[in-house]
């Protein structure tokens, strides 16, 4: 039938892949799973990440820590701001994908995308300010110069919210990366496509490979490997099922990961964020030095 309508053209579909170390591999397991819209219509096959993919992502994230946390805060701020610029350019595409993924109206999808872009900008601006807000000069009772500064904790595993496919994802990833952490994000299981498109934005921005890695697949399958991984320093359990979160926190205690539990306010990602997520990925280092001549 379509042959009789010459104006209609068969679309070239996109292959949705993982994003690890700046590259786009399929799952090493060779698995994929069908993603549908809210009405059950087929949208695409997404890669179903395996334990090996998760471990590869941790390796890539670890490799990226030194460069990213060692970059100047001004540089990190600019790099993240550029992500917002590129998101803006793809606003229409993201709106369509969020709409398909979440089954919301055009207006709601548009405002979610706008909020996402604005959130990147908000976090980008924190890069060179968090240290001043979070650090302190301490007046110790003695002839010492004493200062406390925040530092990135290292590699963070982030289980992105299951409902808010783009705004939710960005709201949990940005607070980790802004201060120099690197991230393995597990996208919303049933709504992963906006996350994959975000990874394409990241790949063409100036974010170094490995700083943000995005996995799609079954959260319940991937999360335990990240929670128990001894080279992961923090885990955000926001996207974990309620009955799985305690077990994941238990596994996270093996190397005393910093654990971020979802808060009541997290249901609504449109609200203005508090600083607790940024704080959760920061260590405080206190340096002493004697004063004297």
């Amino acid at each position, binding site marked *: 039938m379509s042959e009789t309508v010459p104006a209609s053209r068969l679309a070239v579909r996109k292959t949705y892949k993982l994003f690890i170390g700046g590259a786009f591999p399929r799952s090493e397991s060779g698995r994929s799973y069908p993603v549908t819209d809210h009405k059950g219509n087929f949208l695409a096959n997404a890669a179903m990440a395996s334990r090996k993919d998760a471990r590869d992502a941790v390796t890539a994230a670890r490799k990226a820590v030194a460069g990213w946390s060692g970059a100047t805060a001004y540089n990190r701020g600019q790099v993240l701001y550029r992500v917002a610029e590129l998101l803006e350019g793809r606003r229409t595409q993201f709106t369509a994908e969020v709409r398909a993924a979440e089954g919301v109206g055009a207006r709601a999808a548009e405002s979610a995308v706008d909020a996402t872009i604005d959130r990147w900008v908000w976090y980008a601006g924190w890069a060179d300010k968090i240290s001043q*807000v979070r650090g*302190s000069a*301490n*007046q*110790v*009772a*003695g002839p*010492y110069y*004493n200062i*406390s500064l925040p530092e990135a*904790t290292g590699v963070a595993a982030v289980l992105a919210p299951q409902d808010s496919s783009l705004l939710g994802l960005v709201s949990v990833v940005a607070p980790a990366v802004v201060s120099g952490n690197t991230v393995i994000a597990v996208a919303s299981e049933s709504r992963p496509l906006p996350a994959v498109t975000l990874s394409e934005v990241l790949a063409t921005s100036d974010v170094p490979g490995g700083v943000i890695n995005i996995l799609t697949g079954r959260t319940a399958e991937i999360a335990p490997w990240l929670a128990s991984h001894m080279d992961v*320093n923090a885990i955000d359990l926001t996207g974990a099922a309620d009955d799985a979160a*305690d077990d994941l*926190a*238990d596994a*996270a*205690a*093996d*190397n*005393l990961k*910093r654990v971020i*539990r979802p808060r009541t306010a997290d249901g609504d990602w449109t609200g203005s964020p*508090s600083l*607790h997520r940024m*704080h959760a990925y920061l*260590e*405080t*280092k*206190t*340096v*002493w*030095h*004697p004063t004297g001549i």
Partner: protein
Amino acid sequence: MGKFEYAPAPESRDVVALRESYGLFIDGDFVPGQGDGVFKTISPATEEVLAEVTEASPADVDRAVSAARRAYERTWSVMPGRERAKYLFRIARIIQERARELAVLESLDNGKPIRESRDVDIPLAAAHFFYYAGWADKLEHAGFGPDPRPLGVAGQVIPWNFPLLMLAWKIAPALACGNTVVLKPAETTPLTALLFAEICQQADLPPGVVNIVTGAGPTGRALVAHPGIDKIAFTGSTEVGKEIARAAGRRKVTLELGGKAANIVFADAPVDQAVEGIVNGIFFNQGHVCCAGSRLLVQESVYDEVLASLRRRLTTLRLGDPLDKNTDVGAINSPAQLAKIRELSDAGEAEGAERWSAPCELPVKGFWFPPTVFTGVSPAHRIAREEIFGPVLSVLTFRTPAEAVAKANNTPYGLSAGVWTDKGSRILWMASRLRAGVVWANTFNKFDPTSPFGGYKESGYGREGGRHGLEAYLDV
């Protein structure tokens, strides 16, 4: 050079009035335990029994938590911050007034030299209360929002190495923020906590705001597992810390755990000062310090010079009676700890490191271990990896700053580190790369209530001290 002979200069014990037995401090009163468990606390320097102490049962813990809950809801959380502040100022003052009594009692029960309990532990404990007292009515300016709320009842478990000071680190910020507490002191050092309970009475602190339950591991477990506890604070071993992290569920936890700090000496460091820092870093408090500089990293070119000077200095350390004002190194806190130090030291020798101990006579009674240095230590040796928590120093060498950083960070711990060099830019370069919560540059083992303290990685999470220390006790 021969050692100077000193006449004994013992601090008088008369200032301390010990009771024969102690109950639990619950709801403002000393009460007997509901079970019949008791244990004895001894002086580790002489093995003399000091007193009998109650072992709190789960029922006792439950009583203490209920008292803390009532005090939280009816009194403490609704009291204006400026009033809470005045109670804390009172406590700080009484600690100062009774400082000598506390210092003697601490040295008796813990085995640490009176010089340290008198000049470090007790003054810092008082300073901690004084510092956090001032925060109680200023919390809205602390950077955690306009009306930060307390968490509720805090369950606190502290170690035996700095008994009263750790109590102060836990109780002062908790109370300043409006929480009430149930605190369990270590089973080998409960006495200053029980004397602190008397101080709370003297200060007219409302009943139930501070509760002290004595006991060992089972009491601690009952406290941490109690559903009425809203916040858990623990200082102790990484092993128990992980157990607590698992038991905590969704409650807020702060953990201050083990360490294996590197103390890094560069060739351009003033050797005499560095050696003083090395000695203070590992032999302060018999090395019973989580942030002790237990791995000495010396730049190869000054290795011989530093080691010779270090050995010479160690021969002048005076080990013995903790109550003698000339004593530098006191007793090991318990037979169990002594066994652990011996086991790891033996492992060091067995694995091929060379052992050297300062020549000193060990008293016949009590638990003692001479200041000991291991050379020829490889990063794979147990004495380079495991926390010994005793007066044992492992010496390694390095050539370049990058190698020093790599070796220093090659540990699951991340509590503290030391750097000795005359070059400012190198200090800052090193400080930014060492994965540790406290970096002492050209000094070591300095503490202050205004200065945040706590670890990276498996040394725990959360900070104690300073503005940062408030966060552990606020719902933020």
